[in-house]
């Protein structure tokens, strides 16, 4: 299942990235080379193997549902590119054509 320019454009859209034509061509080449290498995993039959998500199992030990102080909002928003009081300001989301 070789990767095409169309695949690169689709994946770039999913990842919110954009590339010029030359970079797209390069990505077709790079992704195909990497996937060809990764295809070596198919040498091993894993039909009956359970996938492993996290070593040591999922984190257990739920903590008590107690409110804990949060860092000050101003500290946490100091890196905002644009803000309006306590809110992050972004370009218009709704009502666009």
């Amino acid at each position, binding site marked *: *299942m070789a*990767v095409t320019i169309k*695949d*690169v454009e*689709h*994946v*770039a859209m*999913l*990842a*919110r*990235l*954009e*590339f010029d034509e030359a970079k797209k061509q390069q*990505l077709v080449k*790079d*992704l195909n*080379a*990497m*996937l060809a*290498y*990764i295809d*070596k*995993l*198919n*040498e*091993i039959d*894993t039909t009956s*193997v*359970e*996938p*492993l*998500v*996290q*070593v*040591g199992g999922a*984190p257990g*030990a739920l*903590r008590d549902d107690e409110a804990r102080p949060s*860092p000050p909002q101003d*500290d*946490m*928003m*100091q*890196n*905002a*590119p*644009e803000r309006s009081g306590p809110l*992050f300001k*972004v*370009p*218009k*989301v709704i009502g*666009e054509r």
Partner: protein
Amino acid sequence: MAVIRDIHTHRSLVRSGTASCETITRGFLDSIREHESLNAFRALFPEESLGRARAIDAKRSTAGALAGVVLATKDNICRKGKPTGCCSKILEGYVSPYDATVVRRLEEADAVLVGTTNMDEFAMGSSTENSAYGTTRHPLDAQRVPGGSSGGSAAAVAAGLVTAALGSDTGGSIRQPASFCGVVGLKPTYGRVSRYGLVAFASSLDQIGPLTRTVRDAAEILQVIAGHDPSDATSSREAVPAYVDALTRDVKGLRVGLPKEYFTTALDKGIADAIMSRVEFLRARGAVVRDVSLPHAEYSVATYYVISTAEASSNLARFDGARYGRRSDGTTLAEMYTRSRSEGFGNEVKRRIMLGTYVLSAGYYDAYYRKAQKMRRLIVNDFENAFREVDCILTPTTPTTAFAVGEKAGDPLTMYLSDVFTVSANLAGIPGLSIPCGKDAKGLPIGLQILGKRFDESTILRTGDFLESV
């Protein structure tokens, strides 16, 4: 002033008042400035460091376990009020609003954190060539790379600019540069050290650890940073043993495994000979050396590059220009996201986000991501089986010594294969230690890797400390 080579010296000088922490810190800051051409550092905090040093001098005999130890942290570990940039343009100007748990613990132990070190952007790379701020140079040869992604930390320690540095290791990013630069690098067990405040690359693989000049120093730093942290749900409640006490130099009866899949005829002869000479030291002192098998070793790099890029594509989705980091203009939200990310991320990061997004996308998830998770289980099983027979496993850290700047930059797959001996420890969540093991014909350091059972850093540190002493 005599060269301060280890943590014990720092601590005794400062606690006894023989030398002031301020003078020592000033000396280190001067040599950092003299070695600017290495490009090992991303940011320096001289005034604040000297202020802290004076406060530690005032404590004198009551100063903590890392009294006056001059340390650097990798540019992906948060420090309150300081820039944390992951050497990426997308985080230019970003100032951390909080301390990473490791930073808090180091400061509580009275270490002096003088600056942040250069790295491959978002820890994606094996040479530091992917830093947005230029390559770090190898301290022994400016035409060579120091390894990566914690290349700045490794170079700084190797050049004596700091006594220790923190790095992060997702597929070898502490051990590989430690090997290239001839220093000690420890990747602890997954869950041993809190990741709170470490900018996430691949959350199921990332772990913070020390780069030092001696194994004992690695044990000292681990002692301070290890342990459960309520702010990191994956940090373990497993008790933290006294690591320095484990350094007995006694290896009698120690069962040492050599994976036959790694020691093939393809292995560089200089590296193989260096490792085998150390194996003989162990045997001579009563260790039991035997062959072990890790049948799925050859699949580890492929497995790693599916899992790590998948997790990275998800983790790096947060860099959207909305809440922090670079924002580019856009008339719609989607356009703003796309431009901010496309202008902010470098080539290698974008390449990995693309691969990770692809392997997680509809129609390919089972073929790649789920397949890799299954392979990961087989790799974990290989280690579990091997560790029934032996207490630790010895391998080379890297297939080659430090390569030339630019040598592998054009070919991502070749670069990825430089991690062939290190990635499986991350996949299996086990600890790995790289120690210097002589030099090759070009005079470049060779690294020996010691892998251990989960939460058994004591055994690999003991083995490494013994080998360092012979």
